[in-house]
């Protein structure tokens, strides 16, 4: 008797486990599909020939593949200018953010001084202030210092409105033992030397995190370049794509190609640096 009962409950357990397992995978596949399909359709549209596109439906596979739309999008959309400007902005802003963020974090982590709590609170509160409406006033500031319609405006704002980077460094400094500083001090090294030769090199993982996360953010930034750099010669890739659509509104194949052109670098970075990105996001929340 007991054996039969045991077999029955084992079977029940297995059925329950299998059902929940099936539900699990179905929801995962459904979720993945929702994530992929919108992008996949755009990708297909971008590589289909005009004939395939006009005759087939949105989900149909191409009979032959063409990259003409990509070439058109890149040239007509002035994407080279976009990439060039975005690249400059990235280099300048990321370098500044990393150096300034690491330096400020070093001082705030290693030293005790009057006003430290005040400064840290000021930074903390700033993270909760929604930044986008500040543009109403910042617009005045940028205009009055003559930076409107220059790359400088976006660069300055990129550096000036970021508080997260410093926090990432601050948190990472917890794992760099003060004993390293102390033994250097026994050798008579100045604080500056300690920062330059010991602390900064050890911050490499944090630097990578800041670089990647802030880099992605800057790459994707639309409103700031839109508001402060109306000059088409100063387009970033975000504004270049946006402006491209206006006159080409109904030619979805070219627009699709433009979209893919913007997405592909992101995809590459993601695939290459997945772990870093995950760690960065999880770490910065702490």
């Amino acid at each position, binding site marked *: 008797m007991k054996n039969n009962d045991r077999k029955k409950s084992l079977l029940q357990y297995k059925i329950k486990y299998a059902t*929940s397992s099936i539900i*699990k*995978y179905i*929801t*995962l596949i459904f*979720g*993945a599909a929702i*994530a*992929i399909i*919108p992008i996949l359709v*755009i990708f297909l*549209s971008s590589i289909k020939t005009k004939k395939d596109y006009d005759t087939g*439906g*949105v989900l149909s596979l191409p009979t032959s593949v063409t990259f003409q739309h990509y070439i058109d999008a890149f040239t007509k959309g002035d994407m080279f200018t976009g990439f060039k400007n975005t690249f400059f902005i990235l280099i300048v802003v990321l370098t500044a953010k990393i150096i*300034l*963020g690491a330096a400020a974090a070093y*001082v705030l982590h290693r030293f005790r*001084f009057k006003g430290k709590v005040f*400064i840290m609170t000021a*930074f903390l509160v*700033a993270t*909760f202030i*929604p930044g*986008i*409406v*500040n543009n*109403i*006033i*910042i*617009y*005045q*500031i940028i205009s009055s210092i003559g930076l409107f319609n220059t790359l400088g405006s976006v660069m300055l704002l990129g550096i*000036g409105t970021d*508080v997260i980077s410093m926090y990432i460094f601050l948190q990472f400094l917890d794992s760099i033992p003060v004993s390293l500083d102390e033994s250097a001090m026994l050798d008579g090294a100045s*604080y*500056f*030397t300690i*920062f330059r030769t010991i602390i900064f090199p050890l911050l490499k993982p944090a630097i990578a995190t800041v670089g990647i996360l802030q880099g*992605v953010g800057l790459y*994707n930034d*639309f*409103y700031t370049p839109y*508001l402060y750099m109306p000059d088409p010669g100063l387009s970033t*890739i975000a*504004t270049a*794509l*946006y402006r491209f659509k206006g006159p080409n509104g109904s030619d*979805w194949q070219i*627009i*699709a190609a*433009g*979209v893919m052109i*913007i997405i592909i670098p*992101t995809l590459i970075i*993601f695939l290459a640096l*997945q772990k870093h990105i*995950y760690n960065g*996001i*999880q770490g910065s*929340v702490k």
Partner: protein
Amino acid sequence: MFNKLSYEAQKRIIIVLFTIIPIAMLATFTYYPLVRMIEYSFTNWDGLATNIKFVGLKNYITVFTNPDYFKVFGVSLYYLIATFVQLALALYFATILSFNVRFKNFFKGVLFFPYLLNGVAIAFIFQYFFQVNGTLDTVLKFVGLGAHTQLWLGNPKIINISLAAVSVWRYMGGNFIIFLGTIQAIDPQIYEAAEIDGANRFQQFINIILPNLKRIISLNLILALSGAFSAFEIPFIMTNGANGSKTFVMEALEVAFQYQKVGLACAMGIILLLICIFVTVLQKGLLVSED
């Protein structure tokens, strides 16, 4: 030369040197605008005129009583609800994927990737998606639900649902990864002990995962709720506020830059800030009372 100074002197110099720029930036681009916005919100400044008149709370009252402005709060409601959906989905997927699942990294990557995408790209992808006979309509027809196609962006009654859904699509990945990280940091031995005690997966979720996640969920909730009220980029690019999809921030910026009512716009900005503060305080209050 720096090396010859005493550590005391060095300390003073380096503190100033290393913090002065970040502090100056913070003051200029975060706090100064804040102060000015509060100031201007009580005036009727139009951004150009030199005679600014103090009008007290008139701007604030306008926002809450004039239906043209007030209706953006209604729009925010859609994003608010979407936020809860977003967090629930993030929590669900994070929980599932923290246990043994095949192709875990694939699912993890796919669910997260939209979070990294450029806003303009997402806006265009979904304009195509919601078009008549676009992606969504085609998929519905494909699975036999063709009768249910709608004017996803053309119908004012559902346009906000469509746009809020895009927001969920975009941002769920971020919450998901954060939750996943927190869950994975829980000591696996606790699960083993619970399984031995006969707890099933759901019970494990309620009693092990949830308590550990409380702080993180609360933080994500604050950020997501403030984000819901700050919704701007996607609706701006996709519909530019047409068909009743104008969000609060869109309205504020439009009022400031197109209608030149800087005072009114600043009032809206301050209201947004107050909402964010309110949400934060509410969160903290709820959290404390639960402990």
